[in-house]
């Protein structure tokens, strides 16, 4: 079985609806920019509307110092599943 080189790595930055700027959320592999954008939406925003995404080839990024901290993306206020569903779990079920 051949080991193909694989698609290049892209870093993904997301600005959520209520956010002020783009934050780094992770990476993905894509063959081109259009694919990276679409895949980035699927993977990091579940296509939440009003969210802005940037994708940049990882090898195009120059980092300044070893102490650079990657931003933390917490999906606060963003909903990441597909369809809203109610789960009626009785209040007295422990640990759930």
């Amino acid at each position, binding site marked *: *079985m*051949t*080991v*193909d*080189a*694989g*698609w290049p*790595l892209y870093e993904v930055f997301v600005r959520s609806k209520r956010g002020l700027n783009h934050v780094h959320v*992770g*990476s*993905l*592999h894509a*063959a*081109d920019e259009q*694919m990276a954008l679409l895949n980035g939406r699927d*993977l990091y925003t579940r296509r939440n509307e009003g969210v802005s995404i940037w994708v940049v080839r990882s090898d195009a990024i120059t*980092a300044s*110092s*070893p*102490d*650079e*901290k*990657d931003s*933390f*993306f*917490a*999906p606060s206020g963003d909903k*990441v*599943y*597909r*369809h809203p*569903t109610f*789960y*009626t*779990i*009785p209040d*007295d*079920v*422990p*640990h*759930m």
Partner: protein
Amino acid sequence: MTATTDLEADFEATVAADKRIEPRDWMPEGYRKTMIRQISQHAHSEIIGMQPEGNWISRAPSLRRKAILLAKVQDEAGHGLYLYSAAETLGVDRADLTMRLITGAQKYSSIFNYPTLTFADVGVIGWLVDGAAICNQVPLCRSSYGPYARAMVRICKEESFHQRQGYELLLTMMRGTAAQREMVQDATNRFWWPSLMMFGPPDTDSPNTAQSMRWRVKRHTNDELRQRFVDMTVPQAEMLGVTLPDPDLRWNAERGAYDFGDVDWAEFKRVVGGDGPCNEQRIANRRRAHERGAWVREAATAHAAKGNSR
């Protein structure tokens, strides 16, 4: 060498202070290797885990359940991707990790080497398997390695809903027909012990634990987590009305915890070693998907290259 000793001292101090190690920080080679192995195997587990659950999407008995299951399996793909992404910050390439999975050089959680035989299995996997995974994973949100800890926070959030989805399905089935109740009990009988095995071998049999705890890669021992899982799950089983298949299970007031029977470690070793009901099939499927997709990946690369040279 002084330089390395200083870097090493910094590393140790950062970890001891419960702070994060980031991708561009110096780290001992052993730490890097351990993290790569742990994160990759976690990623592989998410991807392989899509198979036993994906098995029931086409036959889900209501459209709502179909949607929930499809979303769940999609989440698992996403979790795998977040984790591969975290592993790549350590200097490995995802294509290489995929090779290691397919060739058996790296492992995945052996719970996925069991077949899913009824729709109740979907609920039980959510309740027990995701439940056990959460027990394992919440502490990892405080893992010393930054990208891994952050991926874990996102994963845990999504996984807690998976567990609820599974449990809610089981509640619905237990309130349903006799056939549904039997299905739930049967699925529980088959998945209970393998779920306990998810926490790994007993502490007496785990040589890597001490070093992993020092590096804050692991925050609790296997037995500690296993006990915690049992204590959380027994009341949930009682609420459901299913019997856990362990005649030795009983509350120990002195310990403030449940006593439970002996796990069949011989079975665990066999399944982890490759001799489980679905090992070959899981890997073969992953390999086939990867090989079948080669021409597609090559085409995309070729197309992109054309775009670049115009």
